[in-house]
């Protein structure tokens, strides 16, 4: 005899079964969310208290602000500073859903973050064109070009990070090599050095800045924003293929490392790098602090030119962006503006503490004087002259987009190259993925 009817038991078992399976999925299902568009219109005023978000290297900036402005009630939150990380974007997506919770000012951990922060879904970053006009005036427009969206300035540049051309002067002098002045000479010499001094390399391809270093410098349309929904991508453009050929030649000549500059393993390979285009912050941050290359070896010259081009062209690697909330007003907005102005322009941060060349023009010379006194570079004068010159060599038709070109580069090129595929195969993977990713964000892609 049974204690219940078969049918009854089947129902119970069905319920149990569904319960079992539902529990297993509880975690996954939690990712569902609402669907309202972000950018609530109502602006709020806290009465003056502000909250700012900074990544770990920018904590001293916030501390300096507190010291300079004890009258302002400021809460400083330290956030995940991983370049290419998603956690900040995730939190903002949730703030947009909730319609509250945004910080009043933020240092974006990745420059690409400015793309979603200015998108119409989020619309977090305030238009600073009029409300901070006096600060914006102090910037070279080339330095602020990545903050310019449809003729509105939506962020302030912390530091300028154009590429210069780095080389190991000691090595060059000892072996009688001449510093190249064109990209083509650079590639030829790289292959020659790799053959004559096996193990010596002339560049890194494995980090998210690598496409900025080579493709951006070449003017290759990967991030040529036409409007909020339209982008010009064409990797078979002559300006892309010349960079591709250059890299392929050097890669086949064993002159490039598949590591990225930030890889822990790069510290052992770094001292073997004899030359490379690279951001001006490589000098102190990479060579001096991270790779511990002795003083008096590394030096920089002005960016290289492509054969046939009249002027040099350089990429740009980072150079952080400060954004301010569009959701505040009144005293809170006034204080947030004071904060923005301080971190972008005040010598107490920009000259005394910041490791990068200030984006804000009027404090650049003071920073250069201070950095010069360290006497780290082999040819101090040429190096710092190159720093100042480089910003104008960066092609302007390059915006930060919702897709992450650097991330796509690392996840296609690196695995393909370490698996032993040819450079052109890896390039094909990169190019396909770039177009596919851009489409998933809803961009219309034009080839011209």
């Amino acid at each position, binding site marked *: *005899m049974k*204690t*219940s009817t*078969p049918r009854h038991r089947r129902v119970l*078992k069905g319920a*149990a*079964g*569904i*319960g*079992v*399976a*539902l*529990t*297993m*999925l*509880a*975690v*996954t*299902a*939690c*990712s*569902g*969310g*609402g*669907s309202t*568009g*972000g*950018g609530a219109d109502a602006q709020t005023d806290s009465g003056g208290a502000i909250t700012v978000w900074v990544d770990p290297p920018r904590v001293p900036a916030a501390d300096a602000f507190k010291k300079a402005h004890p009258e302002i009630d400021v809460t400083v939150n330290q956030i995940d500073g*991983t370049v*290419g990380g*998603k956690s900040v*974007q*995730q939190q903002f*997506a949730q703030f947009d*859903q909730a319609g509250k919770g945004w910080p009043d000012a933020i240092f974006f951990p990745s420059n690409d973050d400015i793309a979603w922060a200015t*998108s*119409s*879904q989020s619309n977090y970053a305030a238009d600073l064109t009029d409300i901070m006009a006096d600060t914006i005036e102090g910037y070279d427009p080339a330095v602020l070009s990545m903050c310019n969206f449809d003729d509105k300035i939506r962020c302030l540049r912390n530091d300028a990070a154009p590429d210069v051309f780095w080389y190991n002067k000691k090595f060059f002098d000892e072996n009688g090599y001449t510093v190249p002045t064109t990209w083509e000479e650079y590639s030829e010499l790289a292959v020659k050095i790799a053959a004559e001094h096996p193990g010596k390399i002339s560049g890194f391809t*494995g*980090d998210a800045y690598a496409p900025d270093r080579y493709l951006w410098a070449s003017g290759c349309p990967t991030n040529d924003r036409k409007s909020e*929904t339209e982008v010009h991508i064409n990797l078979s453009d002559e300006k892309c293929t010349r960079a591709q050929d250059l890299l392929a030649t050097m890669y086949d000549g064993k002159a490039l490392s*598949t*590591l*990225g500059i*930030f*890889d*822990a*393993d790069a510290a052992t390979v770094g001292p073997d790098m004899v030359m490379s285009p690279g951001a001006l912050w490589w000098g102190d941050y990479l060579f001096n602090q991270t790779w511990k290359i002795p003083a008096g070896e590394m030096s920089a010259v002005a960016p290289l030119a492509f054969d046939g081009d009249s002027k040099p062209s350089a990429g740009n690697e980072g150079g952080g962006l400060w954004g301010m909330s569009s959701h505040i007003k009144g005293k809170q907005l006034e204080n947030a503006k004071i904060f923005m102005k301080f971190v972008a322009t005040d010598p107490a941060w920009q000259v005394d503490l910041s490791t990068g060349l200030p984006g804000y023009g009027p404090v650049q010379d003071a920073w250069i004087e201070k950095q010069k006194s360290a006497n780290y570079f082999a040819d101090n004068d040429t190096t710092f002259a190159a720093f100042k010159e480089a910003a104008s060599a960066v092609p302007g038709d390059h915006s930060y987009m*919702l897709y992450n070109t650097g*991330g796509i580069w*690392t*996840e296609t090129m*690196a*695995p393909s190259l*370490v*698996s032993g595929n040819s450079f052109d195969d890896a390039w094909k993977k990169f190019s396909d993925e770039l177009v*596919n990713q851009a489409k*998933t*964000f*809803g961009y219309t892609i034009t080839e011209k």
Partner: protein
Amino acid sequence: MSQGTIAPPQAEAQSQPPGRGLRTKRQSAAGRRKLHQREVRGAWTLLSPYMVLLLIGGIIPIFYAVYTALQRPATPVQPEGGFGGISSFVTVFSDFRFWQTFGNIFSVLIVWLPIMMLGIVGLALLVHASPGRFGNTMRFLYYIPGALAGIANLVLWVYLLNPAQSPIAGLWNVMGLDTIKAVVATDGNLPFILAGMLFFQGIGTWIVVVNGGLNGIPDEVLEAASIDGANAWHTAWHVKLPIIRPWIGYAALMNLAYGFQLFLEPQLLDQVSSNALPDQTTPTQLGYAFAFSNYNFPAAAAMSLILLVITLGIGLLIVFRSGLFGEEEK
């Protein structure tokens, strides 16, 4: 990182008190109903704390996901969201990464599940065949890696995988891999690395579960087998294995379901290899990207519902086909 969320089922078939059938036969129909009602009430009382959690953490989010999936995301072209019908499912199915992510999961499952099942059954039988202190010690040792918290476990793995520090650096060097990026990102390595991580993390718990099934085998059965001349091998193969078959099926299906929810391991391996892995290796990572990179919450909800259907299917299979819930299939 727990290995699924259901407690192991009890061995109902063995725990049935003898003579129960006789007692119920003597009771009147009314008494039976009363007893039945009391049982049902008791069951619901015991279940209620769980039901509350299930409601908050499972059922309500699922209905919300269904609602969300039927919306249309706000886009630059159309900043106002609204009802979108099944368009979010179309977005998900036509995404160029959708089938790739399932392909990635299958390549992990193909490597991992067979090793996992052989490991669970083999080690559980060995532990059960070694009674006393030795067996208990081994069971504890097997359990340790799974008891480590997820992050600690991952740090250990990063240490193992990095040729610059690894105690098995020799193996990596023989394979021509000299950086952690090369180890993780070289074509075809990832399924094996993930299989290794999942194996050591989960095996201990499942040995305990299957061992529980083995302990439920009555001593008389094993005695009878040995009287009939069965050695340890015969007993394991012809007696123990057929009896614990439902547990093995249960373990296989639960692990299968777990495999579909892979998120943390590929996400963190991507970070330690300087982003050399695709950000959307698995379906859950793709769902995450829909929500937080593409700002497409409806597509993220649709993706989680697709995963819900898969794991719900596996869950129903466990309940109706494994023979662990209810006795009449036996």
